[in-house]
């Protein structure tokens, strides 16, 4: 589905109406970073798909990618900081970065847990620019025991194709079957296959627990598919999704819904307190959402923090750069890259 909106960026201004920091503090919480357990790296904006809700504005036309120096620097950081337990590779379709395989292999050698935000269809579509085949991915993931986290908006075709493009559901099912046949999602704790649900429009996700039961039942009965966990995440009102909300006149209503559903328990567990996010230039952000917005780089002592001047002390000293979009992380049961924060 080519919803070709321009790369719309919004600034960091906390509008009066949606003042996140204020709300956060009024709940008696301190919005400071706690640890860096996860290094999330956005290795490319290139993607074989162009999903309506994509907060990265990824598509086959994007060219940005982390080069080999950046990859090596990330590996050094992992080596120097054993407290960083996870490497979370995202994009675009991260597998389309030419150094992806090397990055995974090196991180695994260090004993780091590697997760990949895998869109499923890239295995069958291959590289949209070079035409390179990607059908080896399920074997590669199995060999390196990579945790596969895949977006599957629904267990039926309608909602999935609406968000991700015509034919995506069918292709995703085929790709999941390939992963299942390599042992993913079958009870082997080293071969984890998790799905991500997000609403098809301007509403909050249903209960993650109930939805997981439905997904498991339906996917197993209809397609014989198995998986480990379902992460229900909230749509964050930035970039393509924000443009869509504005277009249908639902932005204000959606923001109000998020603000009214503010949950202090979810606020306590927002993911930016335990991870940092790296972009294709090596700049560091509080999360992948901030990374996709303008002027949201982390700054410490007046200097941008990057992987090239990385220092753990500085990273923990940073001030998280909140904005109105942060209400997406704290609404209802909360939302993070690992799904619901609190039930």
């Amino acid at each position, binding site marked *: 589905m080519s919803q070709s909106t321009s790369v719309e960026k919004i600034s960091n201004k906390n509008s009066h109406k949606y003042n996140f920091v204020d709300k956060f503090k009024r709940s008696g919480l301190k919005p400071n970073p706690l640890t860096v357990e996860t290094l999330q790296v956005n290795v490319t904006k290139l993607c074989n798909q162009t999903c309506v809700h994509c907060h990265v504005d990824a598509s086959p036309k994007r060219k940005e990618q982390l080069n080999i120096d950046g990859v090596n620097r990330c590996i050094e950081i992992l080596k120097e900081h054993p407290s960083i337990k996870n490497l979370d590779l995202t994009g675009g379709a991260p597998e389309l970065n030419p150094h992806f395989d090397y990055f995974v292999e090196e991180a695994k050698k260090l004993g780091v847990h590697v997760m990949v935000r895998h869109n499923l269809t890239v295995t069958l579509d291959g590289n949209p620019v070079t035409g390179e085949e990607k059908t080896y991915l399920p074997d590669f993931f199995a060999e390196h025991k990579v945790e596969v986290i895949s977006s599957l908006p629904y267990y039926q075709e309608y909602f999935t194709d609406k968000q991700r493009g015509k034919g995506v559901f069918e292709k995703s099912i085929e790709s999941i079957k390939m992963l299942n046949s390599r042992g993913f999602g079958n009870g082997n704790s080293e071969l984890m296959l998790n799905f991500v649900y997000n609403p098809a429009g301007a509403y909050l996700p*249903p209960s993650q627990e109930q939805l997981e039961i439905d997904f498991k039942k339906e996917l197993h009965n209809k397609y014989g598919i198995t998986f480990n966990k379902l992460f229900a995440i909230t749509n964050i009102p930035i970039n393509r999704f924000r443009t869509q909300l504005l277009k249908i006149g639902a932005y204000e209503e959606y923001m109000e819904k998020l603000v009214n559903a503010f949950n202090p328990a979810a606020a306590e567990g927002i993911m930016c307190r335990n991870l940092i996010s790296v972009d294709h230039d090596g700049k560091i952000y509080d999360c992948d959402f901030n990374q996709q917005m303008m002027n949201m780089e982390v700054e410490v002592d007046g200097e941008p923090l990057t992987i090239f001047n990385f220092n753990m002390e500085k990273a923990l000293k940073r001030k998280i750069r909140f904005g109105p979009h942060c209400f997406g992380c704290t609404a209802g049961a909360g939302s993070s890259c690992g799904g619901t924060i609190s039930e």
Partner: protein
Amino acid sequence: MSYYDPSDLKRFAEVGKFSKELMDKFFEYYNSAVGEDGALTKREKSLIALAVAHTEQCPYCIDAYTTQCLESGADPEQMTEAVHVAASMSAGIKLIHALQMQNSLKKKGAL
């Protein structure tokens, strides 16, 4: 201009401006009957409520329960089926009254 204003939905509680205790009691009853999991799941209740919203032809409730259905994990297919249940019940209810008509025809010696 239409008589119905969608933004009135958010002002529902303002009905309690008068006889507040009665409205409070209503909300307590309403929220526990419709808004919580019980012997029926919240999703099943939302689908029933959506069907009722259609038979009662209430635009507020149709808006509210479309959202509620989605947020409890229902999909447009299930929601449309719920409306068909409501529609076919209405049709059946109309049709069974044809027996009343037949009784009447009989009384007049026309059947």
